[in-house]
């Protein structure tokens, strides 16, 4: 390689390297270092594992952490269940303009910010909101019903936010399935369930895993939806991080929580990949 070409290559790579270095690696290294500094006296810090110990000794912290993990897995599973038939329809039934329309319809909610989208749900779900009104109007309820500030509302909001990110990789994966392979599945005597279980789902596996990873990560790291729809019952781990950084002004503690959350996402994604026998490479290609 001539030096000129090497320079060109370097210049082309520079934005990517800067992006990775400045926005991802550097802050995380900083957070990692910060998370190991203990406050021993006002404004006096020293190296130690105190921030991590605090996490394990204070039940509120690790319970919130576990709750976030379990709820996120639940949200991912529900999103997958809802998205699969939609993606199947988009990929295998819809044609031409209908297909484009359907994808656009999935995209539509993302034209407004997450905050506005969540506020929209609050309008619908609150005590004086539309659903409560309809329930009373149809005689299904006698008093105003508060649908906000419970786990159901949080899950609803998170599933709604994740749906698109599940549908797109799923539809992509399903689209590449040769229709005659499905027909061969029936032809050789397979029922709908057999064809789905032995042919369609295995084929869509990279898409399922890719979509699940994306939705899981978005859900675990979400902040606005659990706070707004769950209120003080939201109890999302990101709230704890926010509280440490902003309310308590205890940055090292917040940094430790941040690292733990990163560890959690990585561990669950890794477990998911292992469980489904998928490689990270094939999965990323699908997403």
């Amino acid at each position: 390689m001539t030096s000129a070409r090497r320079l060109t290559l370097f210049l082309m790579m520079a934005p990517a390297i800067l992006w990775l270095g400045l926005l991802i690696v550097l802050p995380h290294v900083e957070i990692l270092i910060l998370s190991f500094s203990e406050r021993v006296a006002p404004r006096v810090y020293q190296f130690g594992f105190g921030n991590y110990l605090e996490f394990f000794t204070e039940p509120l912290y690790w319970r919130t952490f576990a709750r976030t993990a379990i709820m996120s897995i639940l949200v991912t599973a529900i999103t997958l269940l809802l998205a699969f038939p939609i993606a199947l329809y988009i990929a295998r039934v819809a044609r031409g303009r209908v297909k484009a329309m359907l994808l656009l319809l999935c995209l539509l909610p993302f034209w407004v910010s997450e905050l506005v989208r969540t506020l929209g749900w609050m309008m619908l779900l609150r005590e004086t909101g539309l659903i409560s009104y309809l329930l009373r109007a149809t005689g299904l309820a006698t008093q105003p019903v508060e649908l906000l500030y419970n786990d159901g509302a949080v899950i609803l909001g998170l599933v709604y936010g994740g749906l698109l990110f599940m549908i797109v990789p799923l539809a992509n994966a399903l689209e590449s399935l040769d229709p005659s392979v499905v027909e061969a599945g029936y032809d050789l005597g397979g029922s709908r369930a057999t064809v789905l279980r032995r042919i369609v789902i295995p084929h869509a596996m990279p898409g399922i895993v890719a979509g699940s990873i994306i939705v899981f990560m978005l859900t675990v790291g979400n902040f606005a939806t659990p706070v707004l729809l769950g209120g003080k019952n939201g109890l999302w781990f990101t709230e704890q991080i926010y509280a440490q950084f902003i309310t308590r002004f205890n940055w090292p503690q917040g940094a430790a929580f941040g690292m733990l959350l990163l560890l959690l996402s990585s561990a669950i994604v890794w477990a998911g990949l292992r469980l489904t026998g998928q490689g990270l490479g094939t999965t990323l290609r699908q997403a």
Partner: protein
Amino acid sequence: MASSNDLDIVNVTKRFGSHAAVEDVSFSVAPGEFFSILGPSGCGKTTLMRMIAGFEHPTSGDIRIRDRSMIGVPANRRPVNMVFQSLALFPMMSVGENVAYGMTCRGVGRAEADERAARMLERVGLNGFGHRQVTALSGGQRQRVAIARCLVLEPTLVLLDEPLGALDLKLREHMKIELKQLQGTFNTTFAYITHDQSEALVMSDRIAVMNGGRFEQIGSPRDLYHNPGTPFVASFVGETNRWRGAVSGAADRGLSVRLSSGVLAQGRGDAKTGDALCFVRPEAIALAAEAGALQILPNRFEGRVSAVLFDGANSSLLINAAGFDEPIRAVLPQAGPLAGITVGAPIHVGWTADAMKVFAA
């Protein structure tokens, strides 16, 4: 009326919108028969197959398998299995799992299904391939897996939709023979569709020639070749010469046809008057260096060699003769005295009246 056939197609029509892909087709396939449907691309062969398999529903008519109507029976309950044009092997399964799939769908236990799959693979010459990925197989091996996957279920009827289309020429020639042998050893009824007349001629017991959604003629390969019923069959099945002319009257043995520029020729056919198409097989044309050798033939012409198409045993000559709108094509025997003939040489050609089929144009 009880039928002893494996398959009866009764006046089946299939319309897509206003376009009739299959129009009023009827035929029967006897047990153990190798039945082919031969026709050009787009004539409705696949649509017909898909109706038998249960993936399309006839607009009208009946499909009966062993005398049981298949109308309303879903594809996975029909005693037919299909080898798809693209083969459609399951890429997410191993070779063995592909073959065992159909049996496990029928509730055969895993162990037994695996064992029967292994035995079937052995019979099609893929012993020990059970654990391979289907993507790691060659074209011919994939072919055999697709067929094994069907045969292991012992269906009444196996449908094959141009299964050799994707193979290269050499392998295709080989698979033709292999398919025919497989069909013989398993004694299963095959319904085979193809646009390749040589595949149909080599393998079939009977052939239906299809064109524009309709059947033109059904018969044995010999029958279709020697006694085509329509101009389409005459030109589609086998190589042939085709000239335009007009029937000029009945001659002592059959018809007399005046070709476009005035030459008279003798042939056989149903056309009584008007424009006609004449067909003569290249191998029915006798060649001679001198006119005397062809004295007994009613059709005798003189011309010049315009091209020598050397192709080993299939070599032929193109001959320009006065009065013919297309050059005459004649088989050139490589063992005969004319084997060394060159372009421009004068030559005499002739054929019997029986060799020339005349159809109304």
